[in-house]
């Protein structure tokens, strides 16, 4: 079957279960395509040889009851994988080989999936274009020299380019939803505490969440079902009853109330985005759901809040990269000299910038003015959502204020780069689930996404809404395989 890599995860699982395809067939197909796709620079590390071995082993004694039977999958290089180099896109972890496995990837392998390799990402997940990676830019399969978004840029590119059937990313301020939107795929950021953070290289602990990225909503639901679990090794993991998200998936959303927050209509937003949003409202109505105008009054404060909270936590989380226990070490005259050189040479410019911001906002004399203030505003932002959810079941917004931009276009202007996350950041601050689905194209033919934000623990509901809308939208990604060698 030559079109293996075009198949959805759901189809591949079905074909393997029906013995129409073997794990080896599928794994080989994705390896072949990945090998021909070096131009995308989606991979940092591949594990193709051993993936093929594992596929063969699976086929000898296939356990078809598993949720991901013999399915090959590449994952973002922020997840620690046992005995496979894990870099977080950074020079400082360039040679780091974990002796342990993240809970989320462990869950995936336990359901029969096979690791293809580790996908490129912004350094320590800090970026919105994958341009901060030590391992170079990632190309968006949509067009040449177009960023795939970030930080899960390699992941988005790999799914859109069909180098992996599905993947997982992490989302701290939009790092799953924004690249999903830029590449025309589906990406879900779950409720904070739904997926364990154990074994994921930390960026900002109170915001980080792992989540699935897929070609369609159903695949996304299936993968989410696999990765979401209560984990006693993560003190912020939440023990709640999880759904069989894929089984319970329905396109019946009749009577659901969907909020349309007026504050998301920001100054200078392209008309194309405004139009897309209006189209989204119509789709909702076509599905038999109701839209209600709501207000989230503190929305415009979300991004400034995020750019205090996330760097503050990051400045502390990244203190462990000091050249002592693992990773890169620069030569130094003495301990302090070694620290300063290691961190100066080991971290890239954006990571250093954020460490500096974070160090500053926590430093003596500035804590109350910045960090404490941000925590208070974060509370207000959460209150906005709590208030809104008294009236509505979910909220519909654009995923991003623009479509994908050119590589290099925003690298010299950090603030305009940060503005990319304006619609995605509030869900992280409030700990809520959000999903981005492809909903149309702009005039250049680049994909645009819509975001549905749900109540905490209500992933099923936003998956259902996305599923119903997906049917109406009937989006087709325009992939020309321009990069294939």
């Amino acid at each position: 079957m030559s079109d293996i890599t075009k198949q959805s995860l759901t189809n591949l699982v079905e074909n393997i279960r029906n013995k129409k395809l073997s794990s080896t067939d599928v794994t080989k197909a994705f390896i072949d395509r990945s090998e021909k796709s070096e131009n995308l620079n989606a991979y940092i590390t591949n594990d193709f040889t051993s993936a093929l071995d594992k596929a063969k082993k699976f086929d000898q004694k296939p356990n078809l009851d598993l949720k991901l039977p013999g399915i090959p999958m590449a994952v973002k290089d922020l997840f620690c994988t046992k005995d496979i180099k894990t870099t977080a896109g950074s020079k400082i972890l360039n040679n780091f080989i974990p002796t342990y496995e993240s809970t989320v990837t462990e869950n995936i392998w336990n359901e029969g999936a096979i690791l293809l390799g580790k996908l490129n990402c912004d350094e320590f997940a800090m970026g919105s274009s994958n341009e901060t990676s030590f391992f170079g830019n990632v190309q968006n399969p949509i067009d040449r020299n177009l960023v795939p978004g970030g930080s899960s840029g390699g992941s988005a590119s790999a799914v859109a380019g069909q180098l992996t059937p599905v993947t997982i990313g992490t989302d701290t301020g939009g790092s799953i939803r924004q690249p999903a939107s830029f590449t025309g795929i589906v990406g879900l950021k779950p409720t904070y505490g739904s997926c364990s953070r154990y074994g994921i290289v930390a960026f900002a602990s109170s915001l980080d969440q792992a989540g699935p990225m897929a070609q369609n909503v159903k695949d996304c639901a299936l993968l989410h079902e696999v990765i979401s679990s209560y984990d006693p090794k993560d003190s912020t993991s939440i023990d709640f009853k999880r759904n069989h998200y894929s089984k319970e998936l329905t396109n019946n959303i009749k009577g659901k109330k969907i909020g349309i927050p007026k504050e998301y209509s920001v100054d200078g937003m392209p008309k194309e985005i405004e139009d897309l949003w209006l189209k989204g409202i119509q789709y909702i109505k076509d599905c038999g759901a109701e839209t209600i105008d709501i207000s989230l009054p503190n929305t415009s404060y979300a991004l400034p809040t995020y750019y205090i909270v996330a760097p503050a936590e990051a400045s502390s989380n990244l203190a462990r990269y000091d050249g002592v226990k693992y990773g890169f070490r620069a030569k130094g005259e003495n301990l302090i000299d070694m620290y300063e050189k290691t961190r100066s040479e080991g971290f890239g410019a954006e990571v250093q910038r954020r460490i500096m911001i974070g160090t500053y906002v926590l430093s003596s004399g500035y804590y109350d003015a910045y960090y404490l203030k941000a925590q208070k505003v974060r509370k207000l932002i959460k209150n906005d959502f709590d208030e809104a959810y008294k009236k509505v079941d979910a909220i519909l917004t654009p995923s991003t204020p623009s479509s994908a931009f050119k590589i290099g276009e925003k690298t010299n202007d950090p603030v305009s780069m940060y503005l990319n996350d304006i619609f995605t950041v509030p869900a992280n601050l409030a700990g809520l689930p959000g999903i981005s689905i492809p909903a149309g194209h702009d005039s250049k033919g680049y994909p645009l996404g819509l975001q549905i934000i749900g109540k905490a623990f209500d992933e099923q509901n936003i998956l259902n809404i996305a599923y119903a809308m997906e049917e109406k939208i009937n989006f087709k990604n325009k992939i020309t395989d321009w990069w294939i060698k």
Partner: protein
Amino acid sequence: MSKKDSEYLINRKDNQYEVVIGLEVHAQVLSESKLFSTSATKFGAEPNTQVSLVDAAFPGMLPVINEFCVKQAIKTGIGLNAKINKRSVFDRKNYFYADLPQGYQISQFKDPIVGEGKVILDMPNGQKEIGIERLHLEQDAGKSIHDLDPQNTFVDLNRSGVALMEIVSKPDLRSPDEVNAYIKKLRSIMRYLGTCDGNMQEGSLRADVNVSVRPKGSKEFGTRCEIKNVNSIKFMQMAIEYEANRQIDLIEEGKTIDQETRLFDTKKNETRSMRSKEDAHDYRYFPDPDLLPLEVSEKFIEELKNDIPELPDDKKKRFIEEFKLSPYEANILVSDIDTAKYFEEVVAKMGKNKDIKLAVNWITGELFAVLNSKNFEISQSPVSAKNFAILINLIKNGTISGKIAKTVFELMIDGDKDPQKIVEEKGLKQQSDPKTLEALIDKIINDNREKAIEYKQGKEKLFGFFVGQAMKASGGKANPQLINEILKKKL
């Protein structure tokens, strides 16, 4: 220094200075595993063999709190008569050091688990109350070893992540003697509670000492200096004395005191400034986002309260009332939990007709002397409480004299022998049969007629001579009381 009314004052020309001391004691929590990881806490293990991925701060590793350590901290709080905070928060204290793998220490800054409390010190001139400011839980750091290699420092992370309680006193201490009493009291309370072994040699108990001085009578505090990480009471006392005099000298010379962190050099017996100002620390505390606020219920605290054993102050009160001990005796017995345990076991084994005073005298006299000479703790006593009780009873019921008892005690030490058996085997039983003694005394009087006459004529000093003769004739075994009685009658 003058010692009027036991006040510790330092004199300079016309001025008298008072010393103000506050302590931050770091006490290692007794627990099997670390505060946020499941590694062992045993002392003296091979380097880096009790280190988990969490302790070495590998990417993606997360802290999970040990319930027992939380309980230990709350119990200690209860022992310090302190307020237990139902909600407390773990913060990160950020700084870089080779033995701090995370680049931050998880501690409690704004909202500690235990609030204000107090301890009572027994000083020679009466009791003194020392206020406790707070107690919080935090992680210990690893160990940097600087002397194994000329170019490099070696790092051992075995201690990294071990739970510590930091107990902060109010600046209520006024002398090295009070510091001594305070540390001993804290140690005693924690050992009663089983929350810290108090072993200073192994570093289970160390302190940062805050010292300032002020003119006698002044109500305002002077500028304080913090002497970091002092690990013995003797060094604390030496450091305070040095530091107080250093500060007074500065004042007398009209100079100002810099608020700073200092180090006590035990070899030179002096404190010196630790870091230049340029490197002044800014710890950037903020709530650890990997952890949630720690919340404990009323029920949780109540259950721990019910689990608190009798503590030294209560035990002392009881000993005084129940056993009619002097406060001094009671203090000696309760200050160390093992001594109190030994004493209470002796009391229990002595049975109905017991002489508690005698037992106390023997414990604080003979037993302590033996322990001292062998450098033993009372828990390692070569004489069990059971055999010790038998010995005291043998004295009490007149089977042996106090003098013979000392001989018996010495024989007991080797292998915890039963004193009853020693007395029987060696024939050391006291001669208490009046008839035998009367015969013996008759013979002595007969043999020393002249002296007996002199005695009767008024030379009363000679009574002692007859007692001595009688004891000698009995081989030391005669009951001295009976000898006295019979002699008085016969002479």
